[in-house]
């Protein structure tokens, strides 16, 4: 039951942070960041099993691997950007967090550009010139 471990870790960290916050806000932030990283690392393994299963399914059903790779890249960018933004937001730097999110969005859009290019090319060929 990993969920109990994660929730327990979160609860303990929260109580500790509440205790420490009055005296040392700096350490409270560090504790929060460390807890976030720990939970993230903990979930990494689970996500990897999901992703490997997805890959296996895609291979068996004959989906082009480049599609799957694109989708996985999107998930990765979204997760990492989200995590970084949350950690920074916890520290109170709302500006930097929004910049990190912006970077994630732009990188996802960059992945879309070749797909758009192919579709537009096909549509242009469909239309009689």
């Amino acid at each position, binding site marked *: 039951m990993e969920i109990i471990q994660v929730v327990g870790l979160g609860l303990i960290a929260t109580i500790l942070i509440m205790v420490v916050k009055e005296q040392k806000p700096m350490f409270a932030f560090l504790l929060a960041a460390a807890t976030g990283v720990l939970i993230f690392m903990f979930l990494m393994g689970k996500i990897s099993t999901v992703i490997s299963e997805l890959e296996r399914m895609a291979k068996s059903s004959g*989906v*082009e691997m*480049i*599609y799957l790779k694109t989708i996985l890249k999107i998930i990765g960018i979204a997760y990492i950007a*989200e995590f970084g933004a949350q950690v920074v937001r916890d520290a109170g730097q709302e500006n930097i967090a929004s910049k990190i*999110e912006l970077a994630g969005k732009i990188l996802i859009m960059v992945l879309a550009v070749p797909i758009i290019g192919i579709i537009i090319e*096909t549509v242009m060929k469909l239309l009689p010139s």
Partner: protein
Amino acid sequence: MTWLSGWLKEVIMVVLLASFVDLILPSRSMERYVKLVLSLLILLTLLSPLIKVLTQAADVKLAGAFNKWNQQSAIGGNKGSLQQIMDQAKQLKSQQQEQSLEWAAQEIAAQMKEQIRKQNGQSPAEVKVVLALQEGRAADGENALNPYIKGVTVVMQPEAANPKKTADGQDSSTDIRVEPVTPVQVEVNIDPIQGDSDNSGGTTSSKAAGTGNQDSSVSEHAEDIKKMLGNTWGIEPETVVVQSGPSGNRKL
């Protein structure tokens, strides 16, 4: 018909994947962007038969585009790594040069030892040769690094160091072997700029004079060794430094 079923399978699979990704997305803020890319992918899959008819296969094109990007982004990152590789190559080269110099110095030392043994009848305890590299002045006019002998250190056996004692007899020589004092040092120093044949070492010759005063009996041996080494290796005898064993020890 197999083509149709394959296409259907692909479409279903991509839609399933897209919905799944939508589910495991972490945040709402990314949602619109991710949905755009996913819908584009689904559209691409739906259009794939058409694309195959009209142009080349979509996945090949996509892979080409991604590869191009990766290469472009890799060029920026590789500049540093290329520099690193060059630095490593330089380091390795200098290491190799050092090793080869060391090896050559060992060979020269062995030859010098043999020569001293032939001349004196006693082989020195130790001969150390230090080689160094000199810029330019290669034989073919190219700018190359020439090795030259930077210093020679000859450590003599105690019998050779003190001939007076050896004159006492064979037994005393064994006594002397028991004594801890040993080394006689012959140092040949050649100026790095002036090369093998040029004599430069004023300081080294002064050293030789000083040490020669300390032990006059050794200086005879030293003169012999100096002359011999100078003749055979193209070294000026005046630059040869001779140190008697005890004085050398004191210096150490």
